[in-house]
């Protein structure tokens, strides 16, 4: 029962969120946002702060006004038991799909970069076993690990800026004209497919000790999120240009593959991969924590840690069934998944807020 009562701080939750979105951002920002906003893509994360602030405002209001512990309780209270549970069920299915997607991306990324002749299933089993061990334990441990890893990640980002900034070509990110305003605004939509994950994080609301201090940490969240996004855009589109980046599946990885330190140290991409694998591990683990908790709420259970075993097995099969190759996977993300994420991550909480206002619950 102890595992059920362990808690993390709101700061740790935000750290987990920022680290988790790092991996999908390297795919979505340079490729999909770059396709729309072209050389002005670096403005997308800066402008995305405004709707993101609105989303945080909505979530903060939902929690402070209803005084309920987690988002699933809020949805059930606002939408009613039947619709609320249907929404929960949709989230369970969707988050399992997301876990399968990220497990597959993780395995595909490794087999298409450095472990070319290795079986994909080996990497899937490895990451799922790691996740299994983490999710069966207290979320507190995971939160602390992420807090520690955050410092390593920050050092890694700063090194990336130092190494990559000299290679950024100004014609790849400039000029910016008034004609870019429209595309930049449109490119916020796919970006919100990733930023909407913050809503999913609040399903762990009752595992967060100081939710009332949410406002104190929002500035740090906006800053770190924008910093991370702009660094990713600069390193990919700034160096390769939006046209080439659009055709590359692993543009961020290719940048690291070319790095040579003082013409002596080469192959630093292995260090990059080590750092990057943890971001994949973070997103898979936190989604697993969320889905297990949602299943627990859906069936009104006392404990949830035993449910990890069947969910892990479903994810393992699902990750193989989801697509045949990396191309299909990216098509699926681009055309369908990002928009469903926007629906569940942004539109549902905003609708809950509006309905809550009408019903005078919020």
């Amino acid at each position, binding site marked *: 029962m102890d595992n059920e009562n362990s808690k993390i701080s709101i700061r740790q939750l935000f750290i987990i969120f920022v680290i988790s979105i790092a991996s999908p951002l390297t795919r979505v920002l340079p490729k999909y946002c770059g396709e729309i906003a072209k050389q002005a893509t670096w403005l997308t994360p800066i402008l995305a702060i405004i709707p993101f602030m609105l989303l945080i405002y909505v979530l903060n209001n939902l929690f402070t006004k209803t005084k309920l512990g987690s988002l699933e309780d809020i949805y059930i209270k606002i939408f009613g038991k039947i619709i609320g549970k249907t929404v929960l069920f949709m989230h369970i299915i969707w988050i399992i799909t997301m876990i399968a997607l990220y497990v597959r991306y993780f395995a595909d990324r490794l087999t298409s970069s450095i472990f070319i002749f290795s079986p994909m299933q080996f990497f899937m089993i490895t990451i799922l076993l790691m996740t299994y061990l983490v999710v069966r334990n207290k979320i507190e441990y995971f939160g602390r690990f992420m807090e520690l890893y955050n410092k390593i990640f920050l050092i890694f980002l700063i090194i990336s800026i130092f190494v990559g900034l000299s290679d950024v070509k100004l014609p790849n990110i400039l000029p910016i004209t008034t004609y870019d305003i429209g595309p930049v605004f449109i490119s916020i939509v796919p970006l919100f497919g990733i930023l909407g994950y913050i809503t999913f994080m609040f399903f762990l609301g009752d595992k967060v000790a100081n939710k009332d201090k949410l406002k104190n940490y929002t500035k740090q969240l906006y800053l770190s999120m924008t910093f991370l996004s702009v660094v990713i855009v600069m390193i990919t589109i700034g160096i390769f240009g939006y046209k080439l980046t659009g055709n590359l599946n692993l543009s961020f990885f290719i940048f690291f593959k070319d790095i040579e330190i003082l013409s002596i140290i080469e192959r630093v991409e292995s260090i990059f991969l080590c750092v990057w694998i943890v971001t994949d591990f973070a997103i898979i683990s936190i989604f697993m924590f969320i889905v297990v908790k949602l299943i627990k709420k859906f069936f009104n259970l*006392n404990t949830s840690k*035993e*449910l990890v*075993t*069947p969910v892990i*097995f479903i994810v393992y099969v699902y990750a193989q069934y*989801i*697509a045949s190759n990396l191309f299909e996977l990216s098509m*699926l993300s681009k055309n*369908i998944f990002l928009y469903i994420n926007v629906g569940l991550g942004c539109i549902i909480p905003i609708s809950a807020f509006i309905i809550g206002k009408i019903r005078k619950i919020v």
Partner: protein
Amino acid sequence: MLLFSAFFICFTVIDIITLIKRKDRKNLMVFIGLSLVAIAFAIFYYSDMHRDSLVEVIFKLFNIEE
């Protein structure tokens, strides 16, 4: 697959014993239900009952061109 199945069977048996010892019937039912879903899904995938991947099914369903 064999390795993963072995892990799955071991962990499932341990969890079932824990739940039986705890006399948590509701949790046990949900656990068995989810395990059956997992097994059914695995049979569906490994016995080649499917012809296309999920992406191909969705793309055919919504007429999306790759």
